């Protein structure tokens, strides 16, 4: 495992696109925090009521709401890190370095596992950043007169990690399948915003919430309607976590099977 980490580290360390995308992801998270209220109002999330609300008086960035609010917003930027996964796969295919890795003695399982480690690493980096950002901002905004358990609601950070990891594994599978960066990215977005919504029309209501993108996106529920008096899910559903975890396993197995059955 150490060897696989070292090999993947060597591959990424000199890659400009890796650093640019990683910095872009971190910058996107921080910019959204700095302009949190504006960000929410601009996005609107298809809820017109939210634009009518004075968010400056709402406890957006205080405990415990901050855990759900920030992990939900940060989830929008996972596509930037998914692009690292996609390019790391498609470049290996285009430059035929995947082929050379195998010739040099890496097993196909080893190659897949090294990319899985990259996915895990990126999900972890983003999770650690979001955790500390929440901790710092939450503590800063905490009313000293009204001390609560600051870790109440921190389960959303674990959900955020799982959301990212599963999405990255899914991106890995798509990249292996289509072999081209642009196509993989378009497909990833199209499945999320076009194919799944269309498919859900034809599926029974009980099933459409369990399509892969839907279940990943719904792991952290849209939290802001609570500020207009609507009820929202303020905890992470264990069932949802298990389903997302199963999707992660399914996409891993699918990607590995595809890799093992392909000529390189």
């Amino acid at each position, binding site marked *: 495992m150490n060897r696989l980490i070292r090999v993947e580290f060597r591959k990424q360390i*000199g890659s400009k696109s890796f650093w640019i995308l990683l910095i872009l992801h971190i910058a996107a998270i921080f910019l959204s925090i700095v302009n949190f209220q504006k960000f929410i109002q601009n996005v609107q999330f298809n809820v017109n009521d939210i634009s009518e609300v004075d968010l400056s008086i709402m406890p957006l960035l205080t405990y415990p709401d901050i855990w759900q609010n920030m992990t939900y917003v940060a989830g929008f930027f996972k596509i930037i890190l998914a692009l690292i996964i996609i390019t790391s796969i498609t470049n290996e295919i285009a*430059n035929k370095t995947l082929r050379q890795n195998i*010739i040099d003695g890496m097993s196909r399982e080893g190659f897949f596992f090294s990319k899985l480690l990259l996915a895990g690493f990126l999900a972890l980096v983003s999770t650690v950043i979001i955790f500390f950002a929440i901790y710092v901002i939450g503590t800063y905004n905490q009313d000293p007169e009204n001390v609560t358990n600051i870790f109440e609601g921190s389960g959303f950070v674990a959900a955020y990690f799982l959301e990212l990891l599963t999405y990255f594994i899914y991106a890995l599978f798509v990249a292996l399948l289509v072999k081209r960066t642009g196509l993989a990215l378009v497909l990833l977005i199209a499945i999320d915003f076009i194919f799944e919504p269309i498919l859900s029309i034809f599926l029974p209501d009980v099933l459409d919430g369990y399509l892969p993108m839907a279940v990943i996106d719904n792991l952290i529920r849209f939290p802001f309607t609570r500020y207009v008096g609507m009820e929202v899910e303020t905890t992470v559903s264990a069932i949802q976590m298990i389903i997302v975890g199963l999707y992660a396993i399914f996409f891993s197995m699918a990607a590995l099977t595809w890799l093992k059955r392909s000529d*390189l």
Partner: protein
Amino acid sequence: MKNILNISGLAKRYHNVEALKGLNLEIQKGQVYGLLGPNGSGKTTTLGIVLGVILPNNGTYNWFGMGTGSSLRKRIGALLEKPNFYPHLTARNNLKLAADIKEIDKPAIDEKLELAGVLQYANRKYFTFSTGMKQRLAIASAMLGNPEVLVLDEPTNGLDPEGIADVRKLIQHTANNDTTIILASHLLDEVQKVCSHVAVLKSGRKIFNGAVSDLLLGTERLEVGSDDIRLLKQVLLEHPAVKSLDEEGGLVLTEISEGYKAGEISAFLIKKGVNITHFSKRAGSLEAEFLAMLTTKE
């Protein structure tokens, strides 16, 4: 002799094209084994399969009598088709990565870069390399860790004459160290110079397999010169051993039947009053045999 690679009934189909049709091969330790064949004969497919990047439809192969596992490939250095490296990494870092994959503790990277003639470019990024430099780097990478087997697919592609000579020297030097070498090349002259054994493939089938010396046995010709070429030809045709006559650069080339010695021919010519100005043996050419084989054998 120890078996290094055993191929049995290997078959590969790409859609409706049969690239390999039940290939059998055996390569022994220490051999410098040439894999010859025209484009599309199945050379690269064969090497791709035994190097684990192409999946066969049928048949088996076996490295070192032990199997096909990825750990066995770590004992092999290989260049398949084109050099494949990370463009954003330097030559040295690319080799460090390859050494990590091969689990080589002390890869002696600079030594291999020097051997391949690219040490001065060690810190340059791969995407800045010329075709020849890329090829040399690939050879350096294949040599990492002094592998037991070296598989080289068209190793002189993109190299200038000096580079080709360097690769030939490198192969000969490596072969002297008891390394088994499998070499696929279109440059038959190169193969003849370095290979001890060859297999000739045509349309996915093996049409010859054996020692180069066996292939060239009986293909030796005599080069004879005289100040009277007309008389020389006339007299040569009188000798029962002479099978054919050709003229090339003022010399007569003659193929003689097995069992006859060159000395008998020269004595016959002198006896018949031919003034001989040149008399030597010309070794058979792999190229001529290869071309003859492709046109005659199915």
